């Protein structure tokens, strides 16, 4: 018996890192989980297996969620396996998201906005449509970022997309009123998101990267782990957080609260 028994959750970009941490955490609490990623390899399959190992259904759905057609195909594939959707976690992002201002060309901008704003929007729209048709309500969570709050050198395009998500979930909250769907963002701070090097990658937390990098600047005195983000997602998708709607929760160990990051 867990906090999400019987729920059906789709998580985009969940092959590794934070997305995998979310997948395993939701599975630990009894949810069946569909893992999406654009990369389909043994790591992707392993992520789905790690879900199944927890006694729930784990499936993998390869696909590009930066286009409407691509996202719809992923949701179709998820529905074919799971029958319905209760939880959508928009988490997908490509590597190397930072780019100096004058190196930010139209190609980079479009790629950023297509994946992390347009994709998140149309994926949420489709999931909400399914949830309404099911009549069961549900939860939508988008991964935003501390970059949605503050300017940090070379992160303007990424931050702009993430700030858009904060506004987007308010709109979803309002436009979905009465359908028992809550839509929120989690805004991670500095989170270790590498897969552990060890053969046994059945852990949620990933490998701490450069642990000295942030600790002196953070009230929490440590960098974040995928489990910290996953636990906040668990809160919002479980009964504990069902009255939270249109909100963004920062999970950053106090980084933004104290503005010590660039000291």
């Amino acid at each position, binding site marked *: *018996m867990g906090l999400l028994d019987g729920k059906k959750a789709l998580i985009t970009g969940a092959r590794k890192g934070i997305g995998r941490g979310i997948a395993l955490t939701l599975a630990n609490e009894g949810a069946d989980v569909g893992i999406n990623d654009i990369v389909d390899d043994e790591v992707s399959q392993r992520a789905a297996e790690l879900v199944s190992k927890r006694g729930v259904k784990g499936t993998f759905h390869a696909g590009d969620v930066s286009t409407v057609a691509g996202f719809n195909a992923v949701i179709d594939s998820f529905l074919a396996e799971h029958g319905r959707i209760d939880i959508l976690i928009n988490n997908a992002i490509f590597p190397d998201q930072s780019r100096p201002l004058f190196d930010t060309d139209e190609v980079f901008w479009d790629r950023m906005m297509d994946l992390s704003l347009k994709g998140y929007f149309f994926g949420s729209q489709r999931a909400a449509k399914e949830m309404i048709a099911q009549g069961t309500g549900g939860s939508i969570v988008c991964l935003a970022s501390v970059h949605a709050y503050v300017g940090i050198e070379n992160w303007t395009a990424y931050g702009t997309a993430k700030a858009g998500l904060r506004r987007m979930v308010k709109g979803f909250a309002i436009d979905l*009123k*009465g359908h028992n769907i809550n839509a929120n963002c989690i805004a991670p701070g500095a989170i270790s998101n590498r897969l552990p090097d060890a053969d046994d990658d059945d852990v949620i937390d990933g490998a701490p990267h450069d642990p000295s990098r942030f600790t002196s600047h*953070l009230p929490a005195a440590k960098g974040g*782990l995928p489990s*910290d983000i996953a*636990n906040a997602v668990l*809160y919002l998708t479980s009964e504990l957080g069902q009255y939270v709607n249109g909100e963004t929760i920062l999970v950053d160990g106090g980084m933004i609260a104290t503005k010590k990051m660039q000291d």
Partner: protein
Amino acid sequence: MTTKLLEGKKALITGSRRGIGAGIAQLFAEHGADVGINDVVRDDEADKTIAAVESLGRKASWHQADVGNADDRSRMLDEFVAEHGRIDILVNNAVASRDMRFTEITEEFWDHLVGHALKGYLFMAQSVANRMIEHGHGGSIINISSVHSYRAWPHDTVYGIVKAGLNRMVLSMAHDLAGTGITANCVAPGYIDSRVLPEDQESGRGNDEYLGSALGFIPSRRGGLPKDIAGACVFLASDLGEYVNGQTITVDGGFLAGGYPQDSQPLEPGMPGAVE
């Protein structure tokens, strides 16, 4: 309930005789915490809250104290630690207030409200933080703020200032308590139906009648329940929220997400969740 998130934790909740505070006490107990119940008077409501905690197999201690009074605060914390051995969680929830039109606000009113709900919260948090540092286990301090910290309703000037002050207070607590393992956060409730209701009317809690014209402005289409605020407190006080620090989480069913100024409806006098 099999996933217990606060097993063995010791939590003091101020103003927990009834309403939101009692809801927090109950959910904390369901998640395995022992709790201290505080209020200025002990009555049937207080007894019911204590009995509810005990019926869940958890320990409930009673602490009669006025959080606006320094001696009371210090005695309450001493009593609590004597009873439970340590303190892991403080929820600052007690509030004594009423509306007052801006042009009529008196110094006495200001001192009373600020003394309880801002000064009282700060010094309660300070002494608890010092105790947590002594114990060396870290901990979680939660202030109950309000949607009034973000927007104005008629005659809520002092209340709104106090609540906005709490949101700001936790930023500095996050900073100054860095490295202690203590997190400090606020929960900002919207319309929460915390009325005292006869048992046979419990199912009507948060219903349309309670919300009246406000219903249309709440995307979740129901009034909030004490357990909704309690859920946010469980999140923040448990391992789930250990990396959340200096934050204010709004728990309002999407009320503040909406935009047009005319959407802001006054809370009716006596309506719980905002001003009591």
